[in-house]
């Protein structure tokens, strides 16, 4: 098994917005939507990223947030990043006929290839402002797109979860919901899906070390490893994760409230 980073060239860098760039890499991988790769920034760090493009040359979409991603944002095409993977279970698009996809902020990254694979899903894209919206063009081509922004600068003012609730209240039937985004948002989506008895698949994020190898325990949520057992979890597993939406572990392994974890991840 080859589970060490192999350097590949950055082929193209797409500016998605002021804080987010997509890196198209000179690499092909057999992967499914929702799987992730570990990306090594030589001499700096190694971090997990979901694939935002799978067919042809793979791509990752990176929000500037901390040392490693700041360095990535300074990089230019032809420079080298190390990759290993893909890891994790990914989404199971399976038999979904009328799927709803709920994305918050950078959480849209693993959901775009899913929407493109599904075609004709309902996609609720949430962001802070108009400028933070991601993949609008790609999503319009393959899904029925709803947009929400916290400040109302585009689409509906408010949260993506409100649209989901409204659609369900209006009698819309979904046989599957997929989501990725800030964890409090995903917790809310989970509660909505539980109430309406809809199968949910949520992609979780935790700080990782072995990243996909499943042996270090760093990303454990109530004994469940996000890197090897997930990162995508269904209703039953989410129900067992008492820490889901509540707490996460710092690099020392100390468990802290999600807010403190999120602040630490900005560094």
């Amino acid at each position, binding site marked *: *098994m*080859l*589970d*060490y*980073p*192999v*350097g*590949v*060239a950055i082929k193209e860098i797409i500016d998605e917005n002021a804080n987010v760039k997509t890196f198209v890499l000179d690499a092909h991988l057999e992967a499914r939507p929702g799987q992730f790769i*570990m990306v*090594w920034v*030589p*001499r*700096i*760090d*190694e*971090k997990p990223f979901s694939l935002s493009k799978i067919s042809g040359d793979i791509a990752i979409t990176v929000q500037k947030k901390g040392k490693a991603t700041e360095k990535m944002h300074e990089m230019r095409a032809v420079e*080298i990043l*190390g990759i*290993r993977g893909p890891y994790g279970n990914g989404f199971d698009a399976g038999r979904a006929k009328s799927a709803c996809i709920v994305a918050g902020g950078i959480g849209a990254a693993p959901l775009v290839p899913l929407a493109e694979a599904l075609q004709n899903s309902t996609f609720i894209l949430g962001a802070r402002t108009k400028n933070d919206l991601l993949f609008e063009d790609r999503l319009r081509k393959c899904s029925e797109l709803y947009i929400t922004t916290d400040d109302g600068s585009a689409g509906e003012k408010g949260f993506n979860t409100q649209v989901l609730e409204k659609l369900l209240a209006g009698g819309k039937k979904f046989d599957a919901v997929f989501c990725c985004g800030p964890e409090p948002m995903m917790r809310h989506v989970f509660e909505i899906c539980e109430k309406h008895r809809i199968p949910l698949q949520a992609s979780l994020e935790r700080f*990782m*070390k*072995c*990243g996909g*190898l*499943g*042996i*270090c*325990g*760093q990303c*454990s949520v*109530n*004994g469940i490893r996000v890197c*090897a057992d997930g990162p995508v979890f269904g209703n039953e597993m989410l129900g067992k994760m008492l820490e889901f939406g509540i707490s996460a*572990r*710092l*690099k*020392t*392994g*100390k*468990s802290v409230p999600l807010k403190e974890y999120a602040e630490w991840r900005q560094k």
Partner: protein
Amino acid sequence: MSRELLQRVSDSGAGAATIKSITLNPREGHHNPTIIGFEAGLMNAVGYSNAGIEEAKKEFADLSAIPIPIIASIVAENAGEFAQLAGEIDSMKQFSAIELPLSCPHTPGFGLLAGQGTPEATGEITKAVREKTKLPIFVKLSPNVPGIGAIAGAAEKAGASAITAVNTLGPGMLIDINSRKPVLDFKCGGISGPALRPVAVRCVYDVYESVKIPIIGVGGILTGRDAIEMILAGATAIGIGSGIYYRGMNVFAQVCREMEMWMKKNKVKNLDEIRGQAHA
């Protein structure tokens, strides 16, 4: 390591579990990449990341729901700190034994890089811990020494209850030929998994000839066959870590089942019948 992961390992068929090593103060450890897999094993330089003894007291405050013995692993920069940590662990009354890894090959201030792998230092640290606790003490040794038997002997003399053999091999290094840089952020790391196994078997064999106390054989055990091999070399129990990477969480139950199958086929009723038999 979390209490719930210990629970999960217990549910998966392990007969005992060792926690990730605790230090006095919280440590973030090395930067990523800290753990990678290569053709013949795993290589890691985690750097003893842990939340420190005060957090450990909260995380492991109540292990009573876990039916298997839990072994506390402690690491420190000197004998005095080891003794202090051992005292804290002892007073928690949750652990069944204390492991002293005096053998990490890649963390400045600890293990081999702090000179803890000599017979003298091993004896001194073991003695200091023995004075603080009546719990069984397992001393974990390095394979990267010319005479592992002498170090095991020093541990036994100083009051060790068992020898854990062995810690990781190396350190080794892997260089990415495209970026032309070492892959691990610490540049080098300890090797575990299949690459380590024959070295570990030889170490267990050597330790068996040097001490009377039991040996816990660790290093690249993936299958029942590998476990039987360790028992033949002289191990009383075996430990599995990297095996989780190769076979998943069920590795514990699988290894047990494979051992039982071998025993049945070879008409071995009790492992004592074959323990150390490679020495005959």
